[in-house]
């Protein structure tokens, strides 16, 4: 799946998310397994707001912090982010 406006592929978004989330949780990006629920790493609502702030900053996309609970791991989040960016570009 390609996202023309940003040039971000799902694997790239996965790497970006792992990187950001590791930063909030004070872990190494390699420790974040894309299939493991973020809650298991101690993800909380401050981290959720941080993530939304960074997504807004880097992708100019406004998401509600509940997104991190609706799509509870990196894999699901990356797919959702790719989809949102695509529909944003299309719209």
């Amino acid at each position: 799946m390609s996202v023309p406006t940003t040039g971000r592929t799902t694997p790239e978004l996965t790497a970006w998310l792992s990187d950001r989330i590791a930063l909030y949780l004070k872990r190494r990006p390699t420790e974040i397994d894309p299939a493991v629920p973020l809650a298991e790493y101690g993800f909380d609502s401050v981290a959720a707001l941080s993530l939304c702030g960074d997504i807004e900053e880097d992708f100019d996309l406004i998401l509600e912090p509940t997104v991190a609970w609706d799509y509870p791991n990196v894999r699901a989040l990356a797919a959702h982010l790719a989809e949102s960016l695509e529909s944003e570009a299309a719209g």
Partner: protein
Amino acid sequence: MTSFRTFTELVLDRAAELGTEDAFIFLPDDANGSVPEHLSYAGLDQDARRIASWLQAHGVAGGQVLLLYPSGTDFIKAFTGCLYAGAVAVPAPLPTEQGQHFTRVSGILRDAEVRAVLTDSTNAPEISAWLASEGMTDVLCLATDGADYGDPGAYTVPDLSPEHLAFLQYTSGSTSDPKGVMVSHRNLLANEAAIQHAAGTDSNTRFSGWLPFYHDMGLIGHVLHPLYIGGSAVLLSPVSFLRRPHRWLKTFGDYGATIGGGPNFAYDLCVRRVTDEQIAELDLSTWGAAANGAEPVRAETVRAFTERFAEAGFRPESFFPCYGMAETTLLVSGTPLGRRPAQRTVDPVALEQGTFGDPQDDGPRRTLVGSGVIHDFTVKIVDPDTRQERPEGSVGEIWVKGDSVASGYWKRPLTNTEIFDAHITDGRGREDAGGWLRTGDLGALEDGELYVTGRLKELIIFAGRNLYPQDVERAVQSTDKALGVGSGAVFTVETDREHVVVVQEVRVSAVGTDLRSVATGVQRMLGQELNMPAGNVILVRPGTVRKTTSGKIQRTLMRKLFLQGALTPLYEVLEPAVRGTVADATGSSLAQAGV
């Protein structure tokens, strides 16, 4: 400043004197070119008169008035309106906001015997429905951002004494048992004076902050202190700060702000999230007092922030570690201006035994950051058991006396005798005149500097919030029927930061899925609903969590067993840093035992 008998007189005077000058500049939470909202002293005065006159006309000016607002100028107007009317303001978190619930405010509503609720038009329908569902049909509800209520011209200045209550501060007590600190006009004026002495503020001082207004540091520090000195404040909402921390830092350069702060985690968040490009645009050179309080100040936080933001003009002597709590209105001690925070490196083993000792050459060490010096209070370090004063450099409970110390919690005479009127005993069993506040914090005095070292009680202070373990345990146990009620222990352990650890009994036969899913459910509940990172959950067999004979959970003992590695988990998930602590504790306890 001391010529005012009440805070109401003071604000009326400031408004008359300062007129069109900015009192507050609020930056709305809007990513794309939000327009700052300016509230002048005259504007604040006009709306406060209108609100006060409505309270007076409805016969509730003598009672308690609950304030439920999002962050913004409407809260400030309503709080000032209560001051003008002589009503007792009761600020509380807005239950309709993310992560907040009606349970806590329902407890406050009843405990405070609220006569009216002030809110905004967005939240009024839901709040009216909540009042009806609570059977509180005689409690009035007003949306103060509307135009068609109250006549500013009909307002009359009340005759208040310094002992009259200005507000009730509900930051203490668990959800099921909330306690409101009774802050009188005398207490408030005394503490604002103490803050001025400690932080050297004057009418040129400009605050910048994002703390919630129902929090003592947000309210007394960032909202009421600007009014006290006739200065101003630039404010943003907590959510706005958490989404984009650099927005807060940017206000210092944009508006020439000079003072403002928050707990450790706010500074940690800035270090982690503000990018190099953002730092290049910051100017923090006007920031003279970066307040850090609400929990023991961390050396690592001070070091990392100072280092990271030096290139933006932040100076090491600008950090302003301080100590205080709602029970003392706010501030007790603060770091002298222009002086770097005091640091004391001690032997952690000696510290645990209650004394400051220099670390051995290659032994373990812990660096404590001082919370500054004391001006307007008398502070003693007291042995909590014998109630005798402890000598210089010894750890004990921090006891405080002074004009800012509240008279107690609303309607809690028994607790108040114990907490707000404690007596120090001398070596021969004779008691002094009493009147000491027991803070529940542990600390030591050395060379006039106060060091806060920990908590006597099991209260968890996390990211500046007071959390009661029983509330957290109840939330844990609500996530799955396999988790027994009253059979869990929640406590914190320290590495370079604080971590929450949940030890919870589970009946394996009642688990519908698998233990990992049960643990993740707990972590999700705490992370999303209680806003606390829950990276450490240990599920154990029934009978593991120790209780006293009267059924009280022994959290301190459970913490010790956890650190010793003495718990046998059925399932556990631990943060790597916490896992390291467990291994270390095992090592050092073996070493102590001479193995």
